[in-house]
């Protein structure tokens, strides 16, 4: 038997979703989310295992996973900061925040800090425009950002580690 990469928990969670769709392929997005929640990103072996679980060609999983920006096809840091730089955020200083975050973390946008603690990315509109600028910090939104609160947030995460 092939070595399994995904946990029993993954398969149990998926089992519950199976009856929710008339076609197994609809499980692809939920499975990718579930696997990413477990791994933090989606290695090729995991994608292949998902393909086997769903019963489709591995390439089909890959084409779906690569379409959506939230699926990490490369490893990311423990804290993934995604700064929105779209119109509403940009109008309220997102570019300055990005510059600040790059300096503060010592990485360029799109990179991970050498200790694996932070990944910094630019994000398209997060749908929280009335509380701009915003960022996603892993699964949470941090809203009404300014340089102070961004600094404070990063310090807090560093401190909690």
């Amino acid at each position: 038997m092939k070595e399994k990469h995904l946990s029993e928990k993954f398969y149990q969670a998926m089992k519950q979703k199976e009856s929710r769709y008339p076609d197994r392929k609809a499980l692809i997005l939920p499975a990718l989310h579930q696997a990413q929640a477990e791994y933090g990103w989606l290695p090729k072996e995991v994608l292949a295992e998902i393909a086997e679980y769903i019963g489709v060609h591995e390439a089909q999983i890959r084409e779906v996973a690569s379409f959506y920006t939230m699926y990490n096809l490369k490893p990311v840091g423990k804290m993934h900061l995604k700064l929105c730089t779209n119109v509403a955020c940009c109008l309220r200083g997102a570019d300055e925040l990005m510059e600040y975050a790059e300096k503060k973390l010592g990485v360029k946008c799109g990179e991970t800090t050498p200790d694996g603690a932070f990944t910094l990315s630019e994000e398209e509109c997060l749908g929280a425009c009335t509380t701009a600028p915003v960022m996603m910090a892993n699964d949470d939104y941090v809203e009404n950002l300014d340089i102070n609160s961004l600094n404070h947030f990063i310090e807090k995460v560093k401190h909690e580690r």
Partner: protein
Amino acid sequence: MPKCTIDGKEVEFKAGENLVTVAKRVGAEIPVFCYHPGLSVVAQCRMCYVEVEKMPKLQTACSTLAAEGMVVKTQSEAVKKGRAGTMEFLLLNHPLDCPICDKAGECDLQDNSFGHGSEFMRHSEERRTYVDVDMGPVIQKNMNRCIHCTRCIRFGEEVAGIHEMVAIKRGNNIDITTIDGKQLKTEYAGNYSDICPTGSLTLKDFRFKKRAWMLKKTATICEGCSKGCNMEVQQEGNVVYRCVPRENLEINKYWMCDEGRFNYHYVQDPSRIVSPMKRSGDSWLVSPWEELLVNFRTDSAGTGVMLLIGTDLTLEEMKAIQETAKALSPRAAILSFGTPGVESTTQDGPRDQILKMKSKTSNLKGAEMLGIQPLLGAAKSDVVLVFRGGRAELPRIEAKKAYGVGVFLEKERNHFHAILPGLSFLEKEGTVVNHQGKEQSLKRALLPRGKSKAIGEILMLALHQRNGEVTA
């Protein structure tokens, strides 16, 4: 029948026909890239714009079904501008390396650019580039030339039944590819090259061999199995460079398998025997036709003669053998051979979900129609005369004397005492009957090689041979 009007001409259509198809009937050729009649309609390339009365925007002819009373313009100014816009977009990132591209001369991108593009280039940005990808023995991919029509993806999914070609990433960064540089698995990979409207997916077998416009084309039938796929042989200077499928909706639609596509190679294999020869101890000697024909005639006239007819021969050849045998070898047993295990049409059937049949010869049905019984097991007789087109699998032969008449390679000659070289399926005309019972015609694409002769001629000569002299 319902009617619509295209470019001022009234035309009838069947329900469900799109405007690309209906427009052809009034002589309006609508340019397409992504549309292919054998694949689902996606309306992605945006080349086939037409103007439809009462619709504010340009419509794509591929995805617009003709409707009663519809009024369509295929040549209006708006249409021309729309198509020119699409052509400009498609060429933004295309390398324009036509001089070294195998597709040149038969390229939809060239043709549509010629017909619908602008003479000016307004783009000065850097082009998107990718590295070439080897996709296994059949296809080489050059993504730079790709125009994202997705025909290949749809072919894989909808026809070949394997989702191995995919679009990775999105938008301007899309890569259309197999994943991780994997080789294509489908046994129908050659079709990827046929349907690619640019030189993005090229046939390795054909790459850099010949300019497309030099090729002379002959419509014939594949001999690879009992399906009888319609194909076109493309040769120049009596050398075949490529075989491609021809549309036949009742048989192969638009496709053919790789086995059939590349089957032609043996025809021009340097080890093919194209001179009459006979065994002499451990070696083989090229001998005059006359000498071998006399021997052939003498040996075939005796008792204990078995005559084997390959199910890769044409109906005409089979009949000629049957007829001549009455005079030449009246007591001979006449049996057929072709695909071991598929000796009769009842044993024949689909080998996959797509085109391939179990019988690996083209005319099993024809042999049965002529009442030729199959050989089961080995050919045991004093004298065995084997007539073969080139593809029928040789049985085990246990004989004092064995003749091979037809197409053989050097590695096959040790079954025999003498070879009388015949014509391959590309060098002759004739009829084959496919598994459905459809009679189809082989057309001669090549001149005979060396000293080879048609089976009919060989038989006639043998029949009238008396001590080295031909008698009328």
